């Protein structure tokens, strides 16, 4: 909203009583544009008031009983970055005033050298500068995000381009080795345990290498999704039953909180199963023996701020849209914040030792994107990780 045309909330931070009176009286001359005017003589007092009221502008004296110089400005603006600040410096402190403009202030005035008119103008200039600064910051943030997405897409493109060539060059020799050892096993007919063990190990190595190349192929394949109306709860039940043995092996308690009222979603059953399998196996790996995994479904009709489901990007989801959500939560140690940013990167893995290729979550993300949905992974408050799948309802897919 345009702050220049609405009534303002102004805070005066000034320890000299005379200066404070001058400011108050000058400001009251333009009383019709003032909604709230408060004065305080310490930085601590200012911080407290800023926490209580939503001020538009602060007129700030730098030298206060509890804070001196530029430090006053830095402390205030770093705690309340959204408020516009006009510095009210002592006379003949031009240098200081100018310097504050580079340190977060939007304008400065010199005591005794301004009129009500100049003060009023300074306040409005400061507001306008603050508004532009915020717009610029947010544009910069959006640009950085867009650049991040571009880099990500480029990575995916490179991997995709490599995949089928690598597959051809690796899977052919693997097939040759496989039939080679098959022949040796059948012909040798040996009961020598060592020879048997060698053959088993070679076979396992072939399978492992083949799985990695297959992951790579699946990752690069443009998923041709075959969408049908499906009951997400049933797909979840099926996926969980597929890996029941993994739960049992680690004595994991699996809690299902599936809202039976969630609407049918238009999805590719096999692909979504693949995503769920991925998330659940990640959870299995994350928890300790006897750990807990909770799988939930719920659904929401989004209001204007999309607050029902945090983090939803505005370019994909909108007011009035209905989304079906599936959460897979575990009580493991969570994900180190530094890694959270990278988990969807192709080849990012923390499971090298257990044969992770770092493609599981990248594939999951591209599958969710092909459904016009989204996937989020975050640490839960109080520990553990939450993986969240969001599916838009069919009627809003157009």
């Amino acid at each position, binding site marked *: 909203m345009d702050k220049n045309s609405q009534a303002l909330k102004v805070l005066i931070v000034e320890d000299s009583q005379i200066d404070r009176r001058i400011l108050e009286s000058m400001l009251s001359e333009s009383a019709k544009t003032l909604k709230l005017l408060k004065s305080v003589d310490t930085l601590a007092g200012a911080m407290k008031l800023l926490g209580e009221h939503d001020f538009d502008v602060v007129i700030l004296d730098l030298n206060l009983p509890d804070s001196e110089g530029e430090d006053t400005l830095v402390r205030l603006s770093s705690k309340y970055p959204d408020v516009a600040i006009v510095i009210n410096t002592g006379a003949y402190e031009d240098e200081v005033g100018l310097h504050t403009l580079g340190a977060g202030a939007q304008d400065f005035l010199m005591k005794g050298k301004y009129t009500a008119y100049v003060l009023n103008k300074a306040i409005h200039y400061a507001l306008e500068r603050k508004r532009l600064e915020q717009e610029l910051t947010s544009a910069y943030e959006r640009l950085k995000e867009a650049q991040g997405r571009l880099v990500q897409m480029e990575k995916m493109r490179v991997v995709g381009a490599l995949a*089928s060539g690598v*597959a*051809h060059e*690796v*899977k*052919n*020799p*693997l*097939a*040759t*080795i*496989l*039939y*080679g050892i*098959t*022949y040796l096993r*059948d*012909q040798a007919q040996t009961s020598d345990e060592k020879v048997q063990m060698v053959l088993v190990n070679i076979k396992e190595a*072939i399978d492992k290498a*083949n799985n990695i*190349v*297959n*992951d790579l*192929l*699946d990752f690069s*394949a*443009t*998923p*041709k*999704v*075959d969408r049908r109306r499906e009951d997400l709860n049933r797909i979840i039940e099926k996926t969980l039953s597929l890996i029941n043995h993994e739960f049992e092996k680690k004595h994991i308690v699996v809690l299902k909180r599936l809202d039976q009222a969630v609407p049918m979603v238009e999805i590719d059953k*096999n*692909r979504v199963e693949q995503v769920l399998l991925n998330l659940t196996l990640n959870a299995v790996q994350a928890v300790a023996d006897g750990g807990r995994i909770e799988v939930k479904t719920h659904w929401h009709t989004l209001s204007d701020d999309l607050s029902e489901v945090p983090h939803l990007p505005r370019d994909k989801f909108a007011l009035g849209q209905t989304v079906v959500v599936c959460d897979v939560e575990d009580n493991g140690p969570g994900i180190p914040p530094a890694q959270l940013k990278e988990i969807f990167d192709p080849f990012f893995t923390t499971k090298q030792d257990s044969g992770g290729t770092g493609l599981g979550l990248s594939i999951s993300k591209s599958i969710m994107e092909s459904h016009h949905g989204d996937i989020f992974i975050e640490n839960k408050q109080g520990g553990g990780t939450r993986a969240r799948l969001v599916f838009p309802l069919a009627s809003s897919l157009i």
Partner: protein
Amino acid sequence: MKKKVLLIDDERAFTEMLRLNLEAIGLYDVEVENNAVNAISTALNFRPDLILMDIIMTNRRGTDLAAQFKKSLEFRQIPIVFLTATVSGHDPVLGENEFMGHPVIPKPTDLNVLLAVLDENLSTTC
């Protein structure tokens, strides 16, 4: 009588290994053609009951070759099975392990699975 299997694939080592395995079973007569360009004439000489064929080959695409076999009077009834290293086995583009109406076996695949596919396709026509 032994079934005649023609193996068309430009990976020499692979065709050798597969031939050894198939011949060791004793149920198949195997002919190998490593050069896709010669595939038709080899097939005319050998008269296979089934053609096992790679898709990505240096000289010719297996898919083109399959189309040519299916157009010819001599081979239109002969089942073709694709063998390829460029699919994962659950490749969405290829659907349920089928391509152009022919079964697809990803490389590598366990010999038992390959034999099952061979037998199934040999039994439907012969």
